[in-house]
């Protein structure tokens, strides 16, 4: 049977690339995003590439009150659920967040609280059914706060910790929780950042994500080299780290 996948933040560069891999495998997809124009284009593309079924839903995922209904409708449309994939997120402007708490709170809301709400509903659904994969994009930025983006980083650190705990609770009930930690990827989010032409290719990242879901992995660093880089970065003594310009 074709895999039934719910994609939250489906217009993200990484998510769209991932969906293309699934489409080629003939998966059934429900795509959630903020813009119906964008969703329409993504959906048409996935249909042409071989997806068995594609449906879209327009929602601002900051609207946590809408989550239960949105999820119920999506699962209904798919006739069940095998994989839930959370990709939405914002980078925010670090400097703005330093000056204005509201800007920081927005980043924390979209990147942390909104996924926490979604994961809570979805994990409970999966526990009830006794299986399912919850794949969530966090970031290597959550491994250690750096002056250039610690607000974004802390939202991802919170998310990573939440997912660790959730896995600890639900894995034994048949539910896989995959924490995806990409290094810098060439998408709209990083466009214009110095050196972005050398960032990872979203199509390659996408393939690794699909493979990791298939293998029921717990944590994925992608590209893999970031596992080593972050190991080193985590082990720099704080007395040295605080003086670095990262």
């Amino acid at each position, binding site marked *: 049977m074709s895999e039934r996948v719910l994609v939250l933040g489906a217009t993200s560069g990484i998510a769209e690339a991932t969906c293309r891999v699934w489409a080629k495998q003939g998966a059934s997809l429900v795509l959630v995003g903020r813009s119906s124009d964008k969703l329409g*284009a993504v959906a048409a*593309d996935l249909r042409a590439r071989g997806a068995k079924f594609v449906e879209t839903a327009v929602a601002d995922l*900051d609207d946590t009150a809408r989550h239960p209904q949105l999820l119920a409708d999506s699962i209904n449309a798919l006739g069940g659920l095998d994989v839930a994939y959370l990709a939405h997120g914002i980078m925010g402007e670090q400097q703005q967040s330093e000056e204005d708490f509201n800007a920081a709170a927005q980043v924390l809301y979209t990147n942390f609280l909104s996924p926490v709400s979604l994961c809570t509903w979805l994990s409970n659904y999966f526990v009830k059914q006794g299986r399912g994969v919850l794949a969530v994009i966090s970031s290597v930025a959550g491994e250690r706060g750096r002056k250039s983006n610690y607000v974004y980083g802390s939202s991802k650190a919170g998310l990573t910790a939440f997912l660790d705990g959730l896995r600890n609770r639900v894995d034994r009930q048949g539910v896989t929780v995959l924490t995806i930690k990409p290094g810098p990827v060439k998408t709209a989010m990083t466009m*214009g950042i110095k050196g972005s032409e050398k960032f990872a290719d979203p199509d390659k990242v996408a393939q690794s994500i699909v493979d990791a879901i298939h293998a029921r992995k717990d944590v994925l660093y992608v590209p893999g080299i970031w596992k080593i880089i972050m190991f080193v970065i985590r082990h720099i003594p704080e007395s040295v780290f605080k003086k670095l310009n990262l």
Partner: protein
Amino acid sequence: MATAAGSPQRTLSVPDQSDDQMTGKPPFEPWGRYPKYNANVVPLQWQSDFPAIVSRYGGMHNGALAVGMGRSYGDVCLLKDGNLMVTTGMNRILGWDPETGILTAEAGMTLAQILDFCVPRGYFLPVTPGTKYVTLGGAIANDIHGKNHHVAGTFGCHVPEFELVRSDGTHLRCSATENPDWYAATIGGLGLTGVITWAKLKMKPIVSRKIDYEGIQFHGVDEFLALTEASKHVEYTVSWIDCSSTGKNFARGVFMQGDHTRNPGELKPSPEPKLIFPFEAPGFMLNSASVAAFNTVFFHKQMKKRVTALQDYEPFFYPLDKVLKWNRMYGASGLLQFQYAIPWEHAREGTIAILNEVAKSGLASFLAVLKAFGDVPSPGLLSFPQPGITLALDFPIKPGKSFPLFDRLAKMTLEFGGKLYPAKDARMTAAQYQKSYPEWQQFRRYKDPLLSSSFWERVTREE
């Protein structure tokens, strides 16, 4: 919305066009890496991004231009100090009809991506240039041609419909019957009439990846013309010609022809290229001695007068794509291509005269490609191809030497009633352009006031 910290304001931050940002971005270079201009590079990820993006960058008062893969050699894909809107993120398939082979796709989709999708489904590009790393939008805007021009015409002949979006927000569906004047102005319209958001492309059925190939050695332009005449029903024909040799080897070459084989074979997608030219070669690497050696090796690689083979389409159409970024071979100063089309009336004498001039100059040209254009009319107002002969030569840029040669060749081309290809040009004068493309006057009515290119500013300058 309920948040832990009250209601944070959702101020969507918009990047402003600061200097910092202009230098922080990777530069957008044309394939020839000449000229090099500063520009603000912004992505068009979605069809709805244009013209919305214009106000996000303060109105883009320095002008804007949509660009694709930057595979044009010169300045048609540049706008000095302006905004380059890179379309490659806009690469979605919007529709596919396996019965008719009509693909509807966003304009930033590359021909390589189209092949990956279509070949396993038994379809091939109706027209392809010598590299698959160009976008659908770029292929339309230069109304590109391939080795089958004599039977299939230009790329535009296979684009039944597309959408054009103007900077005032007008959306125009264009075809031979709907907004036909915009259709004609935009095909070969150098990106100046608006942004092409999506297009339909009529693909051609194939049963195998393989090409029935035949290579035939020839000496001189007359032998080339005789082979061209004899092969006019073969789908693909093109010749490589040695333009460094003089005397008895003058204008020796290999006439290469092929058809898609009719024997069914595997239709798997191409593997990704693994080779990448790793560094900028120092200027001395390419000199007349190394080129002459290369040309001799190439000529004699084909040992016999005639060679036939069953060849995969990759090496047949895209021999150079095997090495990504091969333009680095020409070093930091870059390369320039010279490509003319001379009508039949003067095609023979013009080609001989120009080949003589090149050989005499002693300036290296690795790749010289000779082909006869057929008489299938181009739908575009400003399209380059016309019945006759076209010759394309690559030169390393050496300002004191290659530019004077270029200028001599351009002058000769015009004297023979010919014209130069904007996609390959960085040198043609305004007077030369306006004389060889008289339709430019009529075209001006369709130009979008926001859009321009360094090419256009150069060739429409008052002299």
